């Protein structure tokens, strides 16, 4: 892919956390307007890579550019939506109160609150305290928050963990809809079957990137029928 198409460009990124090297010189690009799946086993550095992209991670060395600016630049704060694995919302407020607050911080128009709630299918429980909702519902409140500013880039860390298959399907349809409208999505998962819904794949293991390419190309090059098999072949080939 051409450099101008890249929404995210990572060069030689090194991150240490708690005295351990979590990312050891990682380079990758994420294409604009597509869904990129960031896949790999738990603990391989996916979340750290995402934190570096949204600019909340202290990095040891390397460069991360997002939408043409260094990651974490003040100019990116309305353009990048970030959903962490743990739902980062106020448990003692209702979903609507959470979204009202974040909408004002983001200076998003009022009707976005209702739109975001509807887009994650939470209208029925929007007025209950988030703390009384199920894990899946909390995750959706967190996701709705990230949708408020209509960001150009959405970074979603394991957004579908613990959701039932119907809802997972609906969320992925929503992601596709956003990508069709021009949003770039980077979605992490440790469930390889979700990778088959992505356009591009970044496979990670032990703080390194095994492969970063279009899904079709990855499958063709490894001769696999699915991303899980491709991962296994790549790991087998490397050992």
């Amino acid at each position, binding site marked *: 892919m051409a450099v101008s198409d890249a929404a995210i460009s990572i060069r030689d990124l090194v991150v240490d956390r708690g005295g351990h090297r979590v990312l050891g010189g990682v380079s990758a690009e994420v294409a604009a307007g597509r869904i990129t799946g960031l896949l790999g086993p738990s603990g391989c550095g996916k979340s750290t890579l995402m934190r570096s992209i949204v*600019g*909340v991670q202290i990095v040891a060395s390397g460069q991360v550019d997002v939408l043409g600016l260094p990651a974490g630049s003040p100019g990116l704060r309305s353009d990048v939506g970030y959903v962490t694995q743990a739902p980062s919302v106020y448990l003692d407020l209702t979903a609507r109160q959470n979204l009202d607050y974040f909408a*004002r*911080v*983001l*200076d998003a128009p009022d009707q976005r609150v209702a739109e975001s709630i509807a887009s994650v299918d939470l209208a029925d429980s929007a007025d209950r305290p988030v703390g009384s909702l199920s894990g899946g519902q909390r995750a959706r409140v967190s996701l709705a928050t990230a949708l408020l500013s209509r960001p150009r880039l959405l970074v979603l860390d394991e957004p579908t963990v613990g959701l039932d298959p119907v809802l997972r399907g609906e969320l992925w349809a929503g992601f596709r809809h956003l990508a069709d409208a021009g949003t770039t999505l980077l979605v992490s998962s440790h469930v390889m079957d979700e990778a088959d819904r992505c356009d591009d794949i970044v496979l990670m293991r032990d703080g390194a990137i095994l492969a970063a390419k279009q899904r079709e190309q990855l499958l063709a090059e490894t001769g696999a029928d699915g991303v899980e098999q491709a991962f296994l072949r790549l790991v087998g080939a490397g050992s």
Partner: protein
Amino acid sequence: MSPRVVLATGRRVLLQLRGDPRTLALLLLVPCVLEALIKWVFEGTPEVFQRVGVPLVGIFPLISMFLVTSIAMLRERTTGTLERLMTMPLAKLDLLAGYGLAFAAMATLQAVLVSFVAVGLLGLEVAGSTPLVVVFAVLNAMLGMALGLFLSAFARTEFQAVQFMPAFLLPQILLCGLLVPRDQMARPLELLSYLLPMTYAYDALSRVAASSTVTAEVWRDAVILIGATALSLALGAATLRRRTA
């Protein structure tokens, strides 16, 4: 700084408090009950209630706002909402000012209520102006909030945060002059008391209680309290990081 974000944050903090009626009741009622308790404990020596009653109107909000803020800020850190806010177009000062606004409102309510109970119902005598007592109570609440905000950065769990109360506030209560006049303490402690902000809270309120003229010392105490608050807020702001390890 953005007034929109400050107001939204203040409103959000008040909504969180409103959603927790038990905390709200404790914040408002406990100081009133304690004032009454002190009056009746010192039934035989009523001058003690007259001496400590007014300073306590200001020291209660300091303690409760310290606790509420340190736990609230710790929760912002541990649940990831602080990290989320730090990725949004929000200045650190917006967040701090929002908290300040909400807790100033709570402190005013608390101080008005406890002043009403102490002065109106329990017969506490204030030579100076009662509104000035409320003003100092609010200044103290702001100081408590600023200290809580700063110290919460050093707590990893709520257990630790709660222990900061006896660790940082109890020594100040002992040394501020509430229990014993400061010039009767061991000399090193008397000198140490000059470095502790609660000393000036106690001094200001006892001066307002004792005299109807607002002296230069009262103004000086107010300036020191505001200065200590600003310093803790600046230190607190420095602990809010956009990037963390």
